[in-house]
């Protein structure tokens, strides 16, 4: 990019974000993972339009797996509770993201689309890339990134639906494995500060331990315990140096 930010056309942030989405490993990971989820919805008897809407509206893979696999068998209230519990992470993600996007005079409605586009993949890439984007272009950039990645997921959920009947189970398992693995590696690569690295490491260890206690709300407790511990270490180090 040779031109300065003042000469750039409005909306160029959006296209930069779209390009960043195409270059992101998550674009390809989501293609794989969401074909797996599309195949799942075929197995549970939903139609392809429903599956595409499910991705566009929910845009959170764990919640979608819950909806698809339980909607036909348990009561609606149980599905709603399970989805609510699975999506707590979206609150701190949106809360950590928005201060990077907003500046003086940013209107609330400009933040509605970035809010809805926030999912693990978009958030992780956004937190990595946004510091290098001029502040006035960040909302457009993040929207471009989110629309790019959501498009990959939506397309793949439709394709997976049609492929489902022909997909060998082992291949389907491989597709579903793409997401945790690429998340792990991109998180390790993107960790720049002590507090984020510690929070990630503690979360991996504390998460399964708390989940095994079966006390419910395990993701929320993990986040609060591991996140606060990492933050405390960061504060103590700052105080002593």
């Amino acid at each position, binding site marked *: 990019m040779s031109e300065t930010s003042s000469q750039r056309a409005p909306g160029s942030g959006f296209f930069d974000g779209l390009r960043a989405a195409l270059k992101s490993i998550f674009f390809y990971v989501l293609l794989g993972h969401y074909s797996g989820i599309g195949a799942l919805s075929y197995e549970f008897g939903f139609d392809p339009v429903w599956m595409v809407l499910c991705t566009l509206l929910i845009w959170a893979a764990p919640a979608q797996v819950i909806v698809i696999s339980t909607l036909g068998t348990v009561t609606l209230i149980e599905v709603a509770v399970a989805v609510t519990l699975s999506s707590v992470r979206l609150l701190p993600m949106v809360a950590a993201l928005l201060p990077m996007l907003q500046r003086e005079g940013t209107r609330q409605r400009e933040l509605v689309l970035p809010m809805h586009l926030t999912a693990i993949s978009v958030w992780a890439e956004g937190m990595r890339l946004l510091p290098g984007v001029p502040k006035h272009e960040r909302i457009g950039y993040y929207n471009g990134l989110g629309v790019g990645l959501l498009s990959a997921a939506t397309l793949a959920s439709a394709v997976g639906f049609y492929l489902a009947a022909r997909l060998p189970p082992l291949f389907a398992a491989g597709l579903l*494995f793409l997401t945790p693995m690429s998340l792990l590696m991109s998180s390790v690569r993107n960790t720049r500060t002590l507090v984020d690295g510690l929070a990630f490491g503690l979360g991996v260890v504390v998460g399964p331990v708390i989940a095994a206690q079966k006390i419910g709300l395990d993701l929320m407790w993990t986040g609060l315990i591991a996140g606060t511990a990492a933050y405390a270490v960061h504060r103590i180090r700052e105080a002593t140096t």
Partner: protein
Amino acid sequence: MTATMAEIGPYLALILVGFLPNEVWRVLGLVLVRGLDEDSQLVVWVRAVATAMLAAVLAQLVLSSSGALAAIPVVVRVGAIGAGLLAFVVLRRSVFAGVLVGEIALLAGATLWGP
């Protein structure tokens, strides 16, 4: 309280028990942080909480998988993650190489020790 999808149809069910209970967290995040500065201590803490939750989601996806992945033994899943991570570190921190090696390890392990 005991209503099921059969009574209201799949589309209304998707909105009521899929979209709304998920979106409420995003909306709360938006409402709660209006006007906060990105360097404020509260935001540093919130980011740590979000990162720890993400790590826990990842651990859950690997340890207690659902769907087709559940058929593969947990030892193979964890071993494949380890192989991928090793490749990632050795091969100049390339996420692509790490993912590729991890996938090959998963498929090889599932073929050897799978159901």
